[in-house]
C-alpha cells in the first residue's frame, strides 16, 4: 500500500490546486445582517465534561483535509475504484485483495519483531509461508481456514508500544484520519518497503520494469480504497468529523493495548 499511495501523492498536488480553486468559486458571498446572541451557547454547559473530545490543535488544517479527501474521492478516487469493480470479476478482486494482504504480512512481521511479540511473529510467518505457497503466491488465503488469524502491526503501533505519544490528530491527504505517530509510522513503513523492493528488484530483467511496478502500486491503491467502506460525509451527520475523530482515536488506543 505504502509505495502505491506515495505515488498517488504526485497527482494530489495538482488536483488539490484545481479543487481548491473550484471550492473558492462556489463559496457563498451572501452576507447576513449582524449576528444576534444565541439561545443556547456553550458557556451554559461549561459545568459538564466535553463529549467525544480529542485534542486537535490542527483542527483547521484537518477540517480542510477532510473536505479535500471528500473531493478527491468524489472526483477521482471513487470513480476509478468503481471502474475497477465494474470491469473485474469478484473472484479476481478477492484474489487481488489477498495478494496485497499477503505482501502486507511482511510489515506486520518485522513490526511484531520490533515489539517482541513472539506469538504474532510466529502466526504472521506461518500465514505468509502458507499463503505464499499453498495460497499460490498469496492469491488465496488458506491460512485463515487453518486457524491462523490475520494480525496487524505497523510502525506507528511499534512507536506506541515503546511509549511514543500518539501526537495530535492528523487528517492526511488521501490516507485520511491518522495521528502524527501513525502518519510517521506509515512513512517509515513505506521507506522500509521501498528499500526491500529496491533490494529484491523483482523486475530487474524486464524492460521498463518500473512501469510494471508503478502499475502494481496503482492497483494496490485502488484495492485499498475498494476494501474501505468509509465515505466522507456519507453519514449526513453534521458532526461526523468529531464522531469519527473520536472513534478512530479510541480504536487505535484500544488496539495498542494488545
Amino acid at each position, binding site marked *: 500500500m505504502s509505495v502505491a499511495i506515495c505515488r498517488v501523492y504526485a497527482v494530489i498536488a495538482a488536483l488539490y490546486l484545481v479543487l481548491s480553486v473550484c471550492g473558492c468559486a462556489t463559496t457563498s458571498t451572501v452576507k447576513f445582517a449582524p449576528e444576534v446572541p444565541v439561545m443556547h451557547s456553550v458557556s451554559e*454547559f461549561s459545568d*459538564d465534561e466535553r463529549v467525544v473530545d480529542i485534542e486537535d490543535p490542527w483542527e483547521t488544517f484537518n477540517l480542510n483535509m477532510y473536505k479535500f479527501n471528500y473531493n478527491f474521492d468524489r472526483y477521482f478516487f471513487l470513480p476509478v475504484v468503481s471502474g475497477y469493480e465494474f470491469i473485474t470479476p469478484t473472484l479476481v478482486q478477492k484474489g487481488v485483495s489477498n495478494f496485497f494482504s499477503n505482501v502486507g504480512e511482511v510489515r506486520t512481521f518485522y513490526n511484531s519483531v520490533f515489539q517482541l511479540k513472539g506469538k504474532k511473529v510466529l502466526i504472521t510467518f506461518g500465514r505468509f509461508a502458507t499463503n505464499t505457497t499453498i495460497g499460490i503466491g498469496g492469491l488465496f488465503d488458506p491460512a485463515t481456514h487453518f486457524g491462523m488469524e490475520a494480525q496487524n502491526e505497523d510502525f506507528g503501533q511499534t512507536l506506541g508500544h515503546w511509549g511514543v505519544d500518539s501526537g495530535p490528530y492528523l487528517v492526511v491527504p488521501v490516507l485520511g484520519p491518522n495521528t502524527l505517530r501513525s502518519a510517521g509510522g506509515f512513512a517509515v513503513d513505506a521507506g522500509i518497503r521501498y528499500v526491500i523492493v529496491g533490494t529484491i528488484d523483482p523486475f530487474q530483467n524486464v524492460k521498463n520494469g518500473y512501469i510494471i511496478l508503478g502499475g502494481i502500486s496503482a492497483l494496490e491503491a485502488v484495492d485499498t480504497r475498494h476494501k474501505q467502506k468509509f465515505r466522507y460525509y456519507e453519514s449526513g451527520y453534521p458532526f461526523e468529523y468529531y464522531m469519527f475523530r473520536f472513534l478512530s482515536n479510541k480504536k487505535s488506543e484500544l488496539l495498542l493495548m494488545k
Partner: protein
Amino acid sequence: MNHLRLVVIFWICLILLPVTGRAADDGYGYPIPGSYEATILGTPDNLKLAPPDKIAIRQLVLNVLPDIKKPDVFFYDKGLRCTLAYQDKKAPLVFVIAGTGAGDQSQNVVAMMKSLYKAGYHVITLPSPTYPNFIISASYNHVPGDLTEDAADLYRVMETAWNKVKGDIEVSDFYLCGYSLGGTQAAFVAKLDEERKVFNFRKVLMVNPAVNLYNSVMRIEKLLDKIPGGPRKIGAYFNSMMAKFTAFYRRGDFIDFNDDLLYAVYRSKLFSHVEEGGLIGLSYRISSAGMIFSSDIMTNGGYVVPKNRSLSATDPLGDYFLVCVHLSLINYFDEYLYPYLLKKWPELTKAEFIDSLGLKGIEGYLKSSSKFGVMTNENDFILAPGELDYLRQLFGERTKVYPRGGHLGNLEYRDNMTYFVGFFK
C-alpha cells in the same frame, strides 16, 4: 455509518451480537427478556430469516425542492438520498419510512427492504424527516416534528421518487410502512393520500409507532434522569461509560472489535440496567443533536447557532455539537417547534400542541379505515401507560403485540419478519 450509521460503535454495535438465551415459555421464541437489552442487542443472527440471494438496488438522489439554497456548511448535501430495490417484473411497491434520525440505509430500514424484496415487492426506502439530509434537502420549512407538515414533505418526496422510477419499473399497487416515528408518520401520510390520491395505498403498517411524540420523548429523556448528576452531566456520563468499556477491553483477551467482544460485554453484565437505559438516552441525544443543528442552520433560527452567522464548510463545529447533545427533544419541542407553530397559529395552546404530536387528531380516520395494521411490543418503553390499550382500541384485531422485544429489538426476529411481510399479502 447511518446517523449514526455513525453510532457510538462500542455500544450500538452490540446489535451484532449473537445471543443464546432461554425464551420464556409463552410460545414466542425471541430470547431477550429485558426491554433495554433487546433494544440495544437486536436479534441474534441465527434467529433472523435468510436474506435474499441477490438484490437489485439503485440509489436515488432526489432534487425535491429545486429552489433551495444550501449553506456552505452542508456543501456535501447533493439531494435527498433514497434507495430503490426493484424487481424485474410487475409487483407492488412498498414505501418504507425510517425512524427518528435514521437515513435510507439504516439497519432497520435495510432489514425491512430485504425481507420485502425477497417476498417479491419493489421497495423505496425514505429517510426520516428528522434526518439531517431530509431537513436540508426535502423539508419545505426545515423544521421537523409537526406530523402534518412532515407528512406533506414525505408525500412530496414519494411523488418525486415515483416520478423518477416509474418509467423503469412496473407497479401494481402501493403500500406504506414505517417504524418508530416513521410508523406514526405513515398514518398521517396515508391520511393525506386519501385527499391527494396519487398512490391510493392499499395497506399501511405501523411498526413500533409512537402514539404521541411528546409522551415518547418524555419517556426516553427519563432514561437520562437516573445517570449520575442527571442529564446535564451527559458528557461526564459518556466519558465514564467509555472508561468502563476501556477497562473491560484491557482486562480481556480480545483483539478485534467483533461479535465475540460484544458478546462478552453482554454476558459480563458490564453495564447495569440504569446504565443501559442511559446509553439508549444518550444515543437518542447524539441523533437529535444532528437534527437540531441542521434545522437551526437552515432556518437561521438563532437557537444554537447565532442568527445571521454564516458557517463555512470547514468551520469547527465542536462547540455546537456539545450544546446540541445537552439539549433534549423536550427543549426542542418547547423552545423551538412550539414557537415556530405559534407564528402560524397564534391561538395554539400548549395542550393542543402536545395533542397535535400524536395520533389523537386523526383517530376518527384511523378507526374507520381498514387499511391499517400495527406491530409493537408489550415492553416497548416509548409507549406511555395506556397507549398500548389505545392502539388496541384504534386498530382492534389488526394490532399485533409481542410479549417482549423492547423498542424494535425483535424487528428482525423471524416470526416478526414473517408477520411483517405477510401483512401486505
